[in-house]
């Protein structure tokens, strides 16, 4: 018996199969301009006769009509993070188009959350845009900033930060220093935002950026609490969906 969780995010769509104990399969595709196609594609790829329950989440969750249930990414992220590390009491997720902070109680239930969905600064999109200006590949960011001193990026807005970076480049500032400055800026902003919740315990860092050690380390420095992540963190929403699906399936049996 398996359950399927699919997370339709703004940048990537992720899906996992869960057997009640572990994740047995994962898949990730770009969401692109056709979120409906992406979410249905993953469903077709992964759904088989062993799958008893499917939960869709993410901003495109309504686009999968064949899902048994649709649950918001807040609840799914929380359950996914708690599955990956039962010691976490808060989740900071930097997504493609928004960022969120979620607070859990000791029973791993969501008790409060915040979403920053008004502004691209402080989201994955911000770093994407900036790396494009620097003409560097985000995938190599960890190596790229080794031994660098962060440049000071003060603009609060993606568009203005872009202008600021262009002038830094014109002044001959090292690209690695600028990149580290950008990382600092995004992590500082995220920590201001997350600290509006009464954070305690360790914080689970999810979203695409959590794959890079430099983001985890910088965020930890700004939040002042241990920040943990998992190689599976990008799948946290999909995992949470599959875990919730598993509980639903147990109940209906």
């Amino acid at each position, binding site marked *: 018996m398996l359950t399927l969780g699919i997370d339709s995010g703004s940048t990537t769509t992720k899906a996992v199969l869960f057997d009640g104990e572990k994740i047995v399969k994962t898949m990730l595709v770009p969401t692109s301009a056709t979120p409906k196609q992406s979410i249905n594609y993953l469903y077709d790829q992964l759904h088989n006769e062993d799958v008893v329950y499917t939960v869709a989440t993410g*901003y495109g969750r309504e686009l999968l009509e064949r899902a048994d249930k649709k*649950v*918001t*990414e*807040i*609840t799914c992220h929380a359950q996914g993070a708690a599955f990956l590390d039962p010691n976490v009491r808060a989740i900071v997720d930097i997504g493609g188009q*928004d960022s969120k902070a979620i607070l859990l109680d000791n029973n791993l*239930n*969501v*008790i*409060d*959350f915040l*979403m920053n*969905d*008004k502004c691209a600064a402080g989201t994955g999109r911000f770093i994407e845009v900036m790396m494009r200006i620097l003409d560097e590949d985000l995938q190599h960011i960890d190596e790229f900033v080794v031994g660098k001193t962060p440049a000071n990026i003060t603009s609060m807005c993606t568009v203005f930060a872009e202008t600021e970076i262009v002038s830094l480049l014109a002044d001959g500032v090292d690209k690695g220093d600028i990149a580290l400055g950008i990382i600092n800026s995004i992590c500082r902003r995220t920590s201001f935002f997350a600290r509006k919740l009464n954070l305690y315990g360790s914080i689970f860092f999810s979203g695409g950026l959590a794959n890079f050690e430099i983001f985890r380390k910088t965020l930890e420095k700004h939040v002042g609490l241990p920040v943990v992540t998992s190689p599976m963190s990008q799948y946290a929403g999909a995992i949470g969906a599959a875990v919730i699906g598993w509980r639903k399936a147990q109940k209906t049996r």
Partner: protein
Amino acid sequence: MELIKTLPDVFEEFSEQRRNSFMSAFEMKEKNIPFVGTFCTYTPTEIIMASGAVPVGLCSFSDETIPDAEQDLPRNLCPLVKSSYGFAKTQKCPYFYFSDLIVGETTCDGKKKMYEMLAEFKDVHVMELPNRQSVEGRKLWKQEVIALKEKLEEKFGVEITEEKVREQVKLSNRNRLALRHFYELMKLDPPPMAGLNLYGVLYGSSFKFNREKAIQEVNALTERIKKEYDEGSRPIPKRPRIMVTGCPIGGNAMKVVKAIEENGGNVVCYENCGGAKSVDELINEEAEDIYQAIADRYLNIGCSVMTPDSNRLKLMGRLLEEYKIDAVVEVVLQACHTYNVESYTIKRFVTEHNLPYMCIETDYSSSDIGQLNTRCAAFIEML
């Protein structure tokens, strides 16, 4: 009085009342009955009614006129203030057009300064609302109530006798009681109607210019709903019971209520303007000094422009119990400093009652509907 129509039709009629009353306003104007436009719950409408004029709430809940308003006003200003000004400037609000006088109050900074600009289009009378519900504040506010009376007497060439004022106080109290009995139906679990319908009736009833008839209609509606509920009708399923608080809502801002109800919650109580905040308290009809009684009643309103705003917490605390609230959603209109800052106190207050709280900052645009749905759904999943 008995209702002939079905409940959905009655709800529909109430929610369309603002539009439907354009014609009756026009006819009343033809008969030389003056109109006085108002923007705020602090306006002592009894005085206006005692002058023989009709008080009417002016349009302020749509983004339609905001681009016009932004030609004169800063962009990062509260949408309610911008919308109000825009409707006035473009003459798109028929009630503004019909108004012989506009009454405003020195409530928030945005409104206060906007009224100065409004005075270029209309005769505007601004009442000086104190910031505190203190002895001095009560004294000042009573003077302002009397100043309004004098302004109306001069404007319309009438004499406002104490007898007329007392008569209108009684009528308004009956209106408040009718509305209160109506919204108290929401104490039932499951509630007998959707929160959207509840608001539609509260808002719509203020545009029924024959107050006596409005009271009868609201009472008849209450009786009908009660009767159908007693007979077993349950139009709304049992779901988490949500209180809405914060800035005045209505029009486009009702998207928040829609998002709550479409994602699994029942809005059973409005603490904000249009709901309990503006209706709950009665005026002491027997008071020796009726002007002081009117002043006291209005000044007691727990709006975030007051400092400290302890009456808001008092009312909220009572409503949380009476309506068996499961969670509170606060709506803050963008750039409304007083409600935005006060949301810190409200969050703490609600949390101390062991209830979940969520604050939504929004405006009149539809750009955040997707995010609103996610937030509300996640909040209700949490309950």
